[in-house]
């Protein structure tokens, strides 16, 4: 674990996968096996919204959302929701990924932000949201923003030929677990590892200018200057991926790609020029 990072971290690629379906786990594992056998260092970061929704349904828990005054919708993570999130991610999605990776001969270790301080967050103590049409301060939301990554833990595993499989929750400064966005967690991990590439696998072939038309995929998407609005065709889950992409680029990650998680070789953009959309 005390192994030094490779010079410039040049060979490390961080892949964000899963959360909203459309991922072909078998193909992903095959490709991970191929790339790790060739000596490439990979870190997988995953979410699990679909599994979370399924588990909440089984437990009879209604997942709630917060609508910020500017219209942005976010998950409302009270204590019961955080419990469901942790069980879904660490108890269902991650074991399934680890089992599939083992079947493909990949040594992978599952981690959440709670492991050896892997992801430390600053908790959002007060969130503004519209509740029943009235602006309100929500104080029991257990979510936060990553401020520190234990890169040494990941470097040690990578040096041993292990693929870390990372997900929320993170640890807040008050010692309590908090939810954190998995796309932004992937960006924080990529920055901390000085990864050469960050790859977001989605249900689309990349950034689309027409969400209904896969052929509208862009080869390159240039982020607007900070503070300026995104193009109107950026919406849904893409908004937050582009926020995370900006954080990664600002943090020194050389290339950020958004690609198709259902492709035959979903990690092609980890080593070549796509397919997918390169974010610049």
């Amino acid at each position: 674990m005390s192994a030094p990072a490779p010079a410039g971290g040049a060979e490390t690629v961080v892949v964000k996968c899963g959360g909203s379906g459309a991922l072909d786990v078998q193909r992903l594992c095959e490709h991970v096996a191929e790339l790790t056998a060739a000596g490439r260092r990979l870190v997988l970061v995953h979410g699990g919204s679909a599994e979370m929704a399924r588990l909440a349904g089984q437990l009879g828990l209604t997942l709630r959302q917060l609508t910020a005054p500017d219209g942005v919708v976010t998950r409302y993570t009270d204590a019961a929701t955080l419990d469901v999130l942790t069980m879904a991610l660490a108890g269902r999605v991650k074991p399934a990924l680890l089992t599939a990776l083992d079947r493909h001969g990949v040594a992978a270790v599952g981690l959440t932000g709670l492991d050896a301080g892997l992801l430390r967050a600053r908790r959002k103590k007060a969130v503004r949201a519209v509740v029943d049409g009235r602006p309100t301060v929500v104080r029991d939301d257990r979510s936060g923003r990553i401020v520190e990554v234990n890169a040494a833990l990941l470097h040690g595993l990578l040096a041993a030929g292990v693929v870390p499989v990372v997900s929320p929750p993170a640890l807040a400064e008050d010692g309590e677990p908090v939810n954190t966005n998995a796309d932004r967690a992937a960006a924080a991990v990529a920055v901390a590892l000085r990864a050469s590439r960050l790859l977001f696998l989605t249900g689309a072939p990349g950034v689309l200018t027409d969400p209904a038309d896969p052929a509208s995929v862009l080869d390159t998407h240039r982020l607007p200057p900070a503070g300026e609005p995104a193009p109107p065709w950026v919406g849904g889950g893409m908004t937050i991926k582009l926020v995370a992409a900006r954080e990664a680029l600002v943090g020194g990650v050389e290339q950020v790609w958004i690609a198709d998680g259902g492709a035959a070789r979903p990690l092609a953009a980890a080593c070549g020029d796509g397919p997918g959309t390169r974010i610049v």
Partner: protein
Amino acid sequence: MTTVMCPSCESDVELTAAPRQNEIIECADCRSELEVLSVDPVLLALAPEAEEDWGE
């Protein structure tokens, strides 16, 4: 109609409906955003700054 003092400018703030816990109202005089800290009695305080707000 209940009237309480604005903690910022000390003018009267009128509550037009039954206030709710943690609701944010605005002082008509100084435009401060005020959070309802309790409803019985009504206590107001400056609402915390908006934090960036992306969740999983």
